[in-house]
């Protein structure tokens, strides 16, 4: 049984069609993770001891357990406590929650690199806290963590492949359906590997372009 390149080519359109699902979910997850991660960072900056202690436990949990287990928790456990979510929504929530923690952690690192004088100046000018966040800190922070966010985006895209395990019909699940109908699992899996490779290389490359743009904007 030799490698059938024409078979691989013939299934590529179906896999690319399924990739739209992964891309759509990854975009939603990244937007959620960015918004929630920013909110979490601002809450942590208030430095309420009890709240930060709870957040620290949540962060340790998210970083210490596999994403797949977090997805299973959203898929199996949330319905048991009365939250009946569709597989897609459960999966998106799990990955977004996971990604939110990583975004907030990279923001923590980014904050340390912002010039102290910026805050002193804004405080001296009497800017209210929300203006300091929105106009001074966050714009600089986002620029600084662009490389991390690009990396996180590729991690999120890879994470969406795990949603096939909870019956989301994405690239991998489509590939499994094709494989079981055609008895050609190897070519099919190579095809889906190629699809992910292309998506993530495009993200990395456009990220590099965006980085140099931001670098010139800063100069």
């Amino acid at each position: 049984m030799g490698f059938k390149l024409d078979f691989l080519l013939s299934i590529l359109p179906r896999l690319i069609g399924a990739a739209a699902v992964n891309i759509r979910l990854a975009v939603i997850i990244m937007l959620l993770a960015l918004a929630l991660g920013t909110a979490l960072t601002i809450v942590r900056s208030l430095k309420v001891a009890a709240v930060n202690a709870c957040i620290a436990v949540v962060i340790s949990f998210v970083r210490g357990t596999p994403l797949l287990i977090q997805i299973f928790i959203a898929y199996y456990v949330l319905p048991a406590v009365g939250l009946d979510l569709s597989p897609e929504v459960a999966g998106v929530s799990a990955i977004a929650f996971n990604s939110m923690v990583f975004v907030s952690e990279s923001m923590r690192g980014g904050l340390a690199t912002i010039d102290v004088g910026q805050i002193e100046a804004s405080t001296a000018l009497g800017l209210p806290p929300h203006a300091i966040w929105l106009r001074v800190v966050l714009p600089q922070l986002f620029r600084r963590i662009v490389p991390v966010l690009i990396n996180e985006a590729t991690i999120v895209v890879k994470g969406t492949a795990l949603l096939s395990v909870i019956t989301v019909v994405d690239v991998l699940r489509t590939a499994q359906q094709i494989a079981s109908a055609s008895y050609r699992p190897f070519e099919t899996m190579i095809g889906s590997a190629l699809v992910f490779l292309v998506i993530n290389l495009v993200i990395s490359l456009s990220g590099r372009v965006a980085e140099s743009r931001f670098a010139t904007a800063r100069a």
Partner: protein
Amino acid sequence: MHFDPAVLVDYWPLLLQGAWLTLQVSVAALVMGYAAGIAVALIALMPGWLPGLVTGFYVETLRNIPFIIILFVVYYGLPFWGIRLPATLVGTAALALFASAYYAEIVRAAILALPRGQFESARAIGMSPMSAMWHVVAPQILRALVPPSTNMTLTMMKESAVLSSITVPELTYQSLVVQGNTFAPFEVFAAVASIYWLMAVVIAEISRRLERRVGAVQAEAVSRNRIADRYLSLVARRT
């Protein structure tokens, strides 16, 4: 609903067996993956454009494809070439392959971060080649190597959960078995998540000790200024 850990009473041995296999698979993949990673890094640093191109292709391919797909490619690819192995072995090999790409980058970066002329300077003040390597070069490389390596090992241990999808009876697979038998998802996944969490905390603690030993301790960002810390620090200032 209420939380009733008693439903797990008959299933603890199964979960612990799974956790033990997760540990074994992770350690085996760490050893194999690191060996392969060092080899790839050394090839990447050879002169000429070809070695860099080949290893770059290797690293970028493995890093941009989800591990679950790499796993299936290996799982279906080996029989395709006539090689039939037990799932656990295939899973471990795939995990090692996946991790090797990341370890290769870590090793390469650690070697490149070494300031030039360290070895030559040590020789110039009269150290033997062996002791120059041992006392000057090795400690510096180790210092750059340990933090990202332990971090990656933790990621890999978590990634091993994916092996459940090719029926490797590790912790996640056993949790799905127990979940199928008990229909108590809350208790099962709370238990399994706790076991993973415990393993992660232990690995993190080992890595902290290792980092202190090789002198790679990174100081937490010191608070710089009371006003700026209101926005730029997430840690309460100690007064």
